[in-house]
């Protein structure tokens, strides 16, 4: 190692402890992240982790978490996967479109767009 600035990308991976791939099952860009209520304040977390826990008390899609943290998606995913591993957040499992968007949802979406 030299004493030179390693550059922004290295610093980003520093946030994830060098990890570049999420741990565990993969999850979608708009999977819903929800903070799990735990009795005690978790220790050993980084500010980014705490930020996620705070903002995901209301269920929040992954893409919004990334935008909120101002971090690239795959870095955000690593952080989220770590929180999931520790049981601090839940992340929706991906579901096939036919099972999620039913007729009622289509109607709600149509009505919502027309009402904008």
């Amino acid at each position: 190692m030299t004493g030179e600035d390693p550059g922004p990308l290295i610093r980003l991976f520093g946030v994830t402890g060098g990890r570049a791939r999420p741990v565990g099952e993969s999850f979608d860009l708009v999977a819903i992240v929800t903070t799990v209520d735990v009795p005690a304040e978790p220790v050993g977390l980084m500010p980014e982790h705490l930020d996620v826990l705070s903002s995901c008390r209301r269920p929040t899609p992954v893409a919004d978490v990334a935008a909120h943290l101002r971090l690239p998606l795959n870095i955000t995913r690593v952080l989220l996967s770590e929180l999931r591993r520790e049981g601090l957040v839940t992340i929706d499992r991906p579901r096939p479109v036919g099972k999620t968007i039913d007729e009622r949802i289509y109607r709600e979406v149509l009505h919502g767009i027309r009402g904008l």
Partner: protein
Amino acid sequence: MEYAASEPGTSPADTPAMAIKILVAGGFGVGKTTMVGTISEIRPLHTEELLSERGVGVDDLSGVESKITTTVALDFGRITIREGLWLYLFGTPGQDRFWFMWDELSVGALGAVVLADTRRLQDCFPAVDYFEQRGLPFVVAVNCFDGARRHDPAKIRRALGLDGVAPIVLCDVRRRESVKEVLTTLVTYSAGGAFQEAHAGV
């Protein structure tokens, strides 16, 4: 009388939160980001995906510098339908080498808008091909720029070699009402069977 499902109180509180994706594709400079911005309730959010040369992540710090080569920006907008139901519009990266991101964006998506500029119609061919192959419902939205003459959708359909099913809509991506029409056309088209099965004649 329409859309009874939207009446207040009919949304069960125990319905899990859900975010629905719509992709906005098309050639460079065709107005994708403008379209997202016109309809989004938030200023389009911007995030980035780090790319490695091999398109895969790396497991540790060693070699990061040599493998990570670029970032790809992803702009998206949001429409809140109700608490716990959101519509996300993703402007897909235009360059071919980012198609792996389309693969991920397409999974579970409601459908796609292929934005076309009649002066460079060929720019949207790859997107049309992609969604046809994937079987993802899409509409072609022809952005009518200032001074662009009105085009005949039938001619555009022929030029694109569309199978006659995917709707074609003329639009102005800067106008909210126009973007709403594009999106309602897509949602109606995508819903297709679901509507007919439950309510014949809708």
